[in-house]
């Protein structure tokens, strides 16, 4: 445990005895949310900060999003287009199978200045999203669309023509809808100049302007790096929000964040605040301190981010499946999560979240079994007991030695590394630790495949999304492809590639589930990675806050802020 963490625990212990008494519970007049991360730009088309998305979820609505139950639900749209309801049609153009999807926006949906949200707004957003002169963070969502045509009669209706017929046409949660009546003139004025639109967007220069919001709240005051004040959108057409004013306060130091909570300066800490260690410590304190437990509750929600160990499969040692399987058997992951996370972050056997419709439990699970691990290593020719190396295995005079890399300074990962090192040692495998700063790991080491053995980091999956970028063999970074792709370990499996190639064109959910179950089975059989555990989102909220739910996925809790109520 680092000196800093220990110090914090001592301080927290101090706080237990001396916390202020009788702080009034927050009420619906104002809710102060603390966040540890800074927001960048409020134009979500170009933003890459989670904190900015956290805010935008309160002010702007997408056509469609996955809800807290991981089911896709319409927000701006009236009905989810499907083949069954006739709103989706596949067509063939120039030998290419394409699709046309008809959408309809809720009649009551308006911007905060009362202007209706129309098909023109969607068309304009797509035009900006595909403009190469604008730095769009997730252009993939816009690039899939060939054209958007507003209905000439009904301004609320429009159709989207997709370049390829794919089942995931409805996954548009990251498609940010811009108010064309405000952003249109700005864009037209600046579109000729590289990067000029995003610097002059009203979301950047005048974020409190009426008409930018189409969600339950709108910005009242924005101070970059400090706080954002949101008030109810008077033109909000959905369920009325209960809380009058929401203030999101940036407090980058997580210890201060907690002190602010205890002192009553903030009422809650959302998903972008406390570290997992802090949340665990606070949760324990709440159990011991009934007075404190009356005020706050700590929530844990399994997230889409999974920690794993990527294996460089070009390494001759790791290229041997028997070695990979042996190492999995040597690793007691349950013991790991129990010891380090008190079981609040769960072991995962695949890359798919248990709440994802594609999740399959019919995969090979590697239970800890040292005898089996030893036997597999023996079978692979790695023998113990050489006079020169009594502890570690050898083959042809070469020690079974591997190197693991991760982000230096990340205490949790460093502890996990030591744990793995100890476990591997029990079966005669030497594991050397060579950590580098995050920028080096993610900027050089993994994208250029410079790790020789193992690299531990997190990957993010998205609901109902096959892992093309991380697991397809075409996504192995190389000099030839400009180090593109995220299949850093270099996993090649023909059947896996076939599934990932075909699953997008399969429109039957049940058949896709079968395909993805097979993909997960192949993944678990082939052991290209060591999946470790699903990371948990954490938050601390006042006990009188009702209707609050963490989702675990990228559409954060604030997207349903209209359901929040302080009783």
């Amino acid at each position, binding site marked *: 445990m680092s000196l800093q963490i220990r110090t914090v625990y001592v301080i927290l212990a101090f706080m237990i005895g*001396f916390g202020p008494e009788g702080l009034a519970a927050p009420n619906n007049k104002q809710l102060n949310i603390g966040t540890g991360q*800074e927001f960048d730009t409020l134009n979500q088309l170009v933003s890459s900060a989670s904190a900015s998305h956290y805010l935008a979820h309160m002010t702007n609505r997408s056509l469609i999003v996955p809800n807290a139950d991981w089911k896709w639900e319409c927000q701006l749209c009236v009905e989810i287009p499907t083949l069954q309801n006739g709103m989706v049609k596949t067509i063939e153009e120039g030998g290419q199978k394409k699709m046309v999807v008809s959408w309809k926006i809720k009649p009551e949906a308006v911007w905060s200045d009362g202007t209706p949200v129309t098909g023109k707004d969607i068309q304009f957003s797509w035009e900006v999203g595909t403009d190469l002169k604008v730095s769009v963070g997730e*252009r993939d*969502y816009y690039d899939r669309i060939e054209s958007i045509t507003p209905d000439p009669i009904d301004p609320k209706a429009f159709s989207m023509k997709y370049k390829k017929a794919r089942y995931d046409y409805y996954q548009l949660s990251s498609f940010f809808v811009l108010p064309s009546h405000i952003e249109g003139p700005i864009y037209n004025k600046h579109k000729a100049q590289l990067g000029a639109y995003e610097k002059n967007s009203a979301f950047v220069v005048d974020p409190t302007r009426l008409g930018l919001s189409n969600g339950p709240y709108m910005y009242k005051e924005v*101070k970059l*790096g400090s*706080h954002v004040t949101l008030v109810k959108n008077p033109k909000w057409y959905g369920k009325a929000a209960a809380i009058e004013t929401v203030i999101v306060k940036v407090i980058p130091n997580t210890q201060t964040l907690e002190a602010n909570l205890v*002192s009553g300066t903030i009422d809650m800490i959302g998903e972008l605040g406390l570290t997992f260690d802090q949340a665990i410590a606070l949760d324990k304190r709440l159990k011991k301190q009934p007075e404190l437990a009356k005020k706050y509750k700590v929530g844990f929600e399994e997230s889409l981010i999974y920690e794993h160990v990527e294996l460089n499969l070009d390494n001759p040692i790791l290229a041997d499946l028997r070695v990979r399987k042996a190492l999995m058997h040597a690793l007691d992951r349950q013991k790991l999560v129990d010891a380090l996370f008190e079981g609040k972050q769960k072991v995962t056997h695949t890359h798919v979240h248990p709440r994802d419709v594609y999740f399959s439990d019919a995969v090979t699970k590697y239970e800890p079994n040292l005898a089996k691990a030893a036997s597999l290593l023996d079978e692979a020719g790695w023998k113990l007991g050489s006079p020169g190396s009594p502890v570690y295995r050898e083959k042809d005079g070469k020690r079974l030695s591997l190197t693991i890399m991760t982000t230096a300074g990340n205490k949790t990962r460093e502890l996990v590394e030591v744990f793995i090192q100890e476990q591997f040692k029990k079966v005669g495998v030497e594991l050397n630790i060579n950590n580098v700063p995050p*920028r080096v790991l993610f900027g050089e080491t993994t994208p250029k495949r410079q790790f020789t053995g193992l690299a531990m980091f997190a990957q993010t999956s998205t609901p109902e999304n096959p892992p093309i*970028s991380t697991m397809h063999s075409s996504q192995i970074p190389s000099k030839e492809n400009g180090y593109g792709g995220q299949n850093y370990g270099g996993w090649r499996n023909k059947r896996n590639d076939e599934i990932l190639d075909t699953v997008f064109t399969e429109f039957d959910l049940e058949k896709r589930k079968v395909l993805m179950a097979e993909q997960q089975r192949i993944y678990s059989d082939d052991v290209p990675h060591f999946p470790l555990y699903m990371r948990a989102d954490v938050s601390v909220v006042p006990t009188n806050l009702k209707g609050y739910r963490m989702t675990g996925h990228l559409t954060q809790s604030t997207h349903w802020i209209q359901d929040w109520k302080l009783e």
Partner: protein
Amino acid sequence: MAAFIARRLIQTVILILLLSFASYWMMGLMPGDPLDVACQANPHCTPENLEQMKKNLGLDQPIHVRYFQWLGDLMRGDLGYSRTYRLPVTEILGPRLVNTLYLSGISLLLSLIIAIPLGVYTSLRQNSKIDYTLNMFAFAGISVPSFWLALMLIITFAVKLNWLPASGTETIGGDGMMNSFEIALDRIRYLILPVTTLSLLTIASWVRYTRAKMLETMRNDYIRTARAKGLSESRVIYRHGLRNALIPVVTVVALGFSGLFSGAVITETVFAYQGAGKLIFDSIFANDYNVAMCSFIVTSLCVMLMNLVADVLYAYLDPRISYH
């Protein structure tokens, strides 16, 4: 003296140009642009997407091309836009620098007013109870990490006593509800804890430094001579002792003042104070060149100017020193 100052100012400009290129170049050498890191964590970020974003930010150009472009813009008075916030650098950095000036300026002035008299006082009462007591506090101040001290102050004055705000720069939403006097008072309330943190640490080291220099000076022959001449003790101490002891202290204080605009990253971060320190730190790690380079110019100019001030003060304090 005027020629010396003019020469130093010309050297300062040349040095800043050289250092600015070195800084720009070194920032460019850092592996892993934040775009790479963000893309790595996003399964929807395609290699083409990443390449296009780099192109839009000009990152596809060689470093020297980007540097001279930045320098050209700077010469025309265009500080550019922040890559992170998409806002003009002046809009972001200006208010932060002013906040940092308040924080660092007040704490440095407080430190100066408190530390030098205390240093002199303890040196004149060497090995007394008060000397031991103040030394103990000075050592504690030097040894205590700033983040720890800051947290303890927050817990005591914000969490336990609820006298002062735990963090921030000003009361949110207070602008329209307070008059100028109330706004000033509000800002002071938010400054008390961070100023105390910074001041205590600075006072501790400056007290020790002044004390040591005074002790050393008071042992010199010319002090004995001054006393032998029958000068009053206060004249001996302040005219002969302190004036000589202050020469090295001036360097330390001048360097302290040179950091007025560079901010105190840890203190600002712990107190979520809207200063320049954390912004500069973040801009370097975010490869936000325009913000980082602008901050760099301001801070290096401060260092060089304060060094020049220190050199000029040397000449004033010690007549033996002259500049040609």
